[in-house]
Each structure stands twice: as C-alpha cells, then as structure tokens.
C-alpha cells in the first residue's frame, strides 16, 4: 500500500488584523489553515505576544513575576518603555485594573491620562484593557478610546453586558476591538454577530473565547478555540473568522501552582521555574489550539514562546 498524505482543503480564512501605526505596526491572523499547518496552506503572519502592564503597581502579582519589573512597575510609562526597549516587546497590553471599583476606583479621566502618556512614550502598538467590571469598563473604555483616537489600538473587552458603548467608541475612534464571551462557541458567535450588526466591521474584531489556566479548565478554552477555528475554516463561518486572543498571564499567575513556595510543596519543585513553565505551557497549548495573539507577563516565558514559535513556523 503506498502512502498518500491526506491534505485538507479549507474554504475559509482567518482575517488578518493589523494594529498600531507606522513602522512598528503588527499584523497577525490571515492563515487559511489550522495553526502551524503550513504544509497545506498559507500562514502569512506569525503569532504575536504582548507584554502585560498595569496602570497601578502589580501588588497582587506573585513575587517571581513581580521581580523582573522591579524599579519600573511603579509607573506605567517606565514599565512600558522597559518592555519596549529592554525586552523588545512587539506589543504592549495595558490593563487598567486600577479603575476597578474594588481596587483604586480610578476615574475615566485618570485612565485617559495614563493612555495618553503611554502613547507619547512608546511606538509599538497598544492594547488597552479595562478592569473587567462591565459597568465601569463601559465608561473607562469609551474615554480611553477617544484619548487614543486614530492610533489603531486594540480596545477590550466588549462583553454581552456592555458591548454597545464600547464597540461604538472603538468604531468612532478607529480601533480594533476584543469581543469576549464565556467559554462557549455559540455565545462567542452571538456576540460577534451582535457587534457586527451595529455596523462594526468584522475584519476589525478579535475573538476572546475566555482563557483558563493549565490545570484549571484549560481544556475548555483549548476545545472552544479548536472548534471556532474549524468553523472558520471548514464551514466558512464569517462570524468565527476573526483572529483569537489568549489572555494568558492574568489567569495563570493566580493559580496555586504559580506561587506556592517550594517549602510547602516540595514535590512541585522550584516556585519560579514552575510559574514560568505554567505560563509558557498554557500559552503553547493555546497557540496550537488556534490563538494568534497572546498577552503574557514573565519575560522568560515570553522568550521561551518566541523560541518555540520560531521552530513552529
């Protein structure tokens, strides 16, 4: 029996999305095959990793991921410049966690100032994320979208409860938009439809099917991503064709395995290496499942990801 490779022909294609402006603009997506299946189709762009920073100091991050940013994380501008200049970040993701009513309840005006200061200091593309408080985000993200007008940023996250105001602000100020729903392909599809029905172009969307950490429901995110990608490619489902985001860092650095001291869990080995491996493993598996854009924290995890991406393309 002679062997003939079974190649798939995919009729659909993931939209390429470009963010940022000028020389440092970055494009991801655009493939017409499952991720890293370049043997049967086009994969014009490599996945992109954004470094996560915050508007307030990262007091609740575990020590091992706080340490690399010591001396810069007290100020978002210093922190962003450090990521851009020292760590060679391709993209910065600013999380406005300080606007959360239970944190510092910073105002939309405070947030806008942070964003304007950052944009003046860096030239790589910027992702601007709210604090995941649906009500507060709809005020904060509207204000920052305006402050960043025409900078082609990514604004997020629009959810079922607040997508209207956020999508309208992203549209009016020429940004891309992250649409997040909770671990269900149908919810994800529905939200993308609702947003495009407002007149928001589907080519400007990024789908976030909601991340989860290794050992804590990763398999749900993994399978939802695979199913979204198959729907995009095999069923030509246009609402499932935006690139996907894996918001890795904030889910990973919360779980016990990334911060429990070795003294408490001797069979788990070194805390620092364990945390880095946890972030990198979560990220790699979601890349394989179909994510094109990742938001991560630890420089060593990002470095390892870049190395594995280099081997995958």
């Amino acid at each position, binding site marked *: *029996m*002679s*062997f003939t*490779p*079974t190649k798939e022909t995919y009729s659909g294609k993931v939209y390429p999305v470009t963010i940022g402006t000028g020389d440092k603009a970055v494009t991801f997506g655009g493939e017409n095959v499952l991720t*890293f*299946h*370049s*043997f049967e189709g086009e994969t014009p762009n490599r996945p992109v990793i954004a470094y996560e920073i915050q508007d307030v100091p990262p007091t*609740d991050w575990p020590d091992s991921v706080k340490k690399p940013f010591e001396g810069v994380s007290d100020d978002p501008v210093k922190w962003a410049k450090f990521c851009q200049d020292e760590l060679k970040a391709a993209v910065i993701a600013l999380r406005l966690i300080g606007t959360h009513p*239970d944190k510092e309840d910073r105002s939309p005006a405070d947030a806008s100032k942070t964003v304007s200061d950052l944009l003046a200091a860096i030239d790589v593309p910027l992702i601007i994320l709210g604090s995941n408080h649906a009500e507060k985000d709809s005020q904060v993200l509207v204000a920052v979208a305006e402050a960043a007008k025409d900078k082609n940023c990514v604004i997020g996250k629009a959810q079922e409860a607040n997508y209207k105001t956020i999508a309208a602000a992203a549209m009016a100020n020429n940004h891309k938009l992250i649409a997040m729903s909770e671990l269900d392909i149908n919810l994800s599809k529905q939200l993308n439809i609702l947003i495009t029905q407002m007149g928001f172009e589907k080519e400007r969307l990024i789908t976030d099917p909601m991340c*989860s950490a*290794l*050992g*804590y*429901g*990763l*398999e*749900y995110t*993994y*399978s939802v991503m*695979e*199913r979204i990608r*198959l729907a995009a490619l095999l069923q030509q489902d246009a609402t499932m064709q935006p690139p996907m985001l894996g918001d890795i860092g904030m889910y990973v650095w*919360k*779980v*016990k*395995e990334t911060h429990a001291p070795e003294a408490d869990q001797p*069979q*788990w*080995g*070194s805390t620092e*290496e*364990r945390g*880095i*491996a*946890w972030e*990198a*493993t979560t990220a*790699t*598996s979601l890349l*394989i*499942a179909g994510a094109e854009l990742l938001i991560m924290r630890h420089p*060593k995890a990002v470095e*390892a*990801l870049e*190395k*594995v991406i280099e*081997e*995958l*393309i």
Partner: protein
Amino acid sequence: MALSGVEIFKLLPKTNCKKCGHPTCLAFAMKLAQRQASLDSCPDVSEEAKQKLGEASAPPVRPITFGAGDKAVKMGEETVLFRHDKKFVNPCAFALEIKDTLSSEEISELAGQVVGSEIDRVGQKLRIDAIALTNSSGDAGKFESAAKLVAEKAPEVPVILCAENPGAAEAAVKIFAGKRPVIYGANSSNVDAMAEIAKANKAVLGVTANGLEELSTLTEKIKSLGVEDMVIDSGARKAKDIIEQNTLIRRAAIKKGFKPLGYPVINFVQREDSLHETLMAVIGVAKYASITVLSSIEKWKNLALFALRQNIYTDPQVPMQVEQKIYNIGEPGPDAPLFITTNFSLTYFIVSGEIENSRVASRLAIMDCEGLSVLTAWAAGKFTASKIAQFISESGVEKEISHKELIIPGYVAILSGSVEDKLSGWKITIGPREANAIPTFLKTRTA
C-alpha cells in the same frame, strides 16, 4: 478501511431477531459503523462476516501495551483528530532518556528520579512512565551493563531500548524478558535482524524512517515478518515537522483506515534548554504522540506536563468532578466562614482559588451534583434546598464550627428561605454570584 453501516448490514444475518438489543439488523449495523456496538452481541453472525468485520472494526490506531504489571503503558486505540469529538483514549507516556555513556552513579540517580516521580493530582497518580535507554556509546557491552543497572534500580518501570545495532539490542532485551520492552529500533538497513529480535523476545518494535512513505513500507515489511506491535517515528524532530507528520499519520489512520500508519507514535523532543523541551513535549501531547522522550525531568517540568496531559485527555462529555466533602482552605478555626457549592471541578477550582486569594481561612462544602455547575445543577434539581440541608446535616460539619451560618452562591439566592426552613437554627447568607467577588465579600464581612 472502515465499512459503512450499509456495507456492514450486508454481512449480518438480516433476521431482525433483536438478540443484540437493537430493533433491527440495520440499526445494529449503524451502531457498529459508529463503533458504538460490538459484533460480539450478535449470536448468529457467520465466521466469514466476523473476519471481514473484525478487520474493518479493528481500531484505526492499534492498541499496544509495553512494560508489565501495574506500571505497564497502554497506547493507541485513538479514534478522532480533535478532543471535542470524543475522548482521547490513552494518554501520552513520558520517557526519560538515559545514555549508556553515563557513569553508574549517574544512571542510578536518573533511574531513581523516574521511580520517585509519582505525584497525586486531582485524585490521579501521575508519573514519568518509562525510561529510554540509549546506546550512545555504540558499544554492545556498555549498553548491556547499563540495561542491567536500570533493571535493578527501576525494576517496575517500562523501558525503551534505543539501539541501531542489533547486537546491542539483543543483549539488552534479554535482561527485560517478560517485561515487554520497546526496541527502538528498526530502520531500513537493519529491519530484518530487528524484527527477528523483537519477535523472539516478544518486544514491541520501534520503527524509524525518513518520512512517511518509507515508514509505511517498513511497517508493512515488519508485519510480514511476523511482528504486529510497533511504535512509529517519522524522523521529525523540529516542532513544525512533528505537527505535520503526526497530523498526517493520525489522519491516514483515522480518515483513510491506512493500516501501515495505524500505530502509536513516538517523538523525541530533547533540547538543551529544559523549558524549551517542556514546550516541545506540550506539542507532542496535544498533537497525537503516544510517547515523548525527554532529556530531563525536573519536578516543576513534570507537574506542568502532567497537568497538561490530564487536561488534554479529559473526557469532553463527562464534566470533571471533585469528591463530595468539606474542604478546609487555610487552617479554619471554629468561627471560620462556611461556603457551599457544587462538585464541578472548575467551580471547585475557581471558588477555592478565590477563597485562597482572600487569605481568609474558610470551609468549603462541595456537594455531589454529578459534576454540574451551580445554575445547571439547580435547574436539573440536583442543587436543591432539601439536598443541601441533608448534605450539611450529614456532613458533621456542625460539630467543627461554633456558628450556624452557611454561605450559598449568589446565583441560587432564591434557595435561601427554603434552606433556612429545612436546616433548623441555621442562618443562610447569600454570597456573590461570581467567584471573583469572594475576596471583596469576605473583606467587607470582617470589616
């Protein structure tokens, strides 16, 4: 090649006798085609049909076991390309490479690491499953003595004997008589000798080639020489090639029923940098490897890989569940808060994680709701006032605490009155709807 329902139907007795438990032979044939029934249920099937159907219904990836006893490793039997379609069956085994050029102390130390690698995670015992002993010296005598040492230090651990030289393979395989090692392996220049050794010693034969065309020819030849149990290596070493070749192998086996590639896959992912190697193993686990061979097994690395393997090989149709009991988070005193929620593993992980983040020692009562989340369990009548009351009174938690207050999930606020009626003397407090509000909830309570 898999047969369709109608093709199978033609081979059945067509008596519609119902003895198989299906209303008609056609219905039974359809179930057979979907691999949801076994031909054994039909008492009247002819020998000829049995043979034809047997071949067609054999799993597309051959089931193979290596090693012996409790720690034997099962591989193959996979039926799908994507885990959302159906559970991936036999989890990828991790093997540690030990080179025969190392000193006896080093070999003993590494074998000891494998033996001591077992940990418990969510009720499952997980470990580095095998040792891949490599004939890096090229010397048969050295290989044999290293094999003896491994057999002595790690007697229960399944082994993969990596040698190209049939003399070395033969010397080492004798040491593992009755323990069903893998010999890796056969290539185009030594295939006859290796097949002979595998056959004589009842070993599984690893087959390596340069690409899938050559690999298919080799496995066919080995089968004709009388060895049926093989693990296959396409020769891919780079991440991109591993994904490509493993995908093409799995597709050929499952979509085309192509027998020459219907065997478990072995990937060698050794790298200088241990973190990079970890990520290579992630690719192996996610993309169809049955064995990945590693060069080091630090504890942090094992934990990450065990958790990943568990995630990927979870049954997508059966929610992961945790055991029903009262869990202590931190070291709760008698006045610590008591929460209740359902036993869906994600619910448990998220709620216990948030309680932990709040740094307020608490008790968390996890109630068996067949792995459903709070709202689903409530809607399905499994998380009801009377069941909650019964669980709490039978749990004996009352004896450990100085208060009688139970915090219920905000989504089932509607239950608070009826639980209070059924649990006499208890106060029911409505907790947050989402777990991420628990730290604030606890903070405002104590303030």
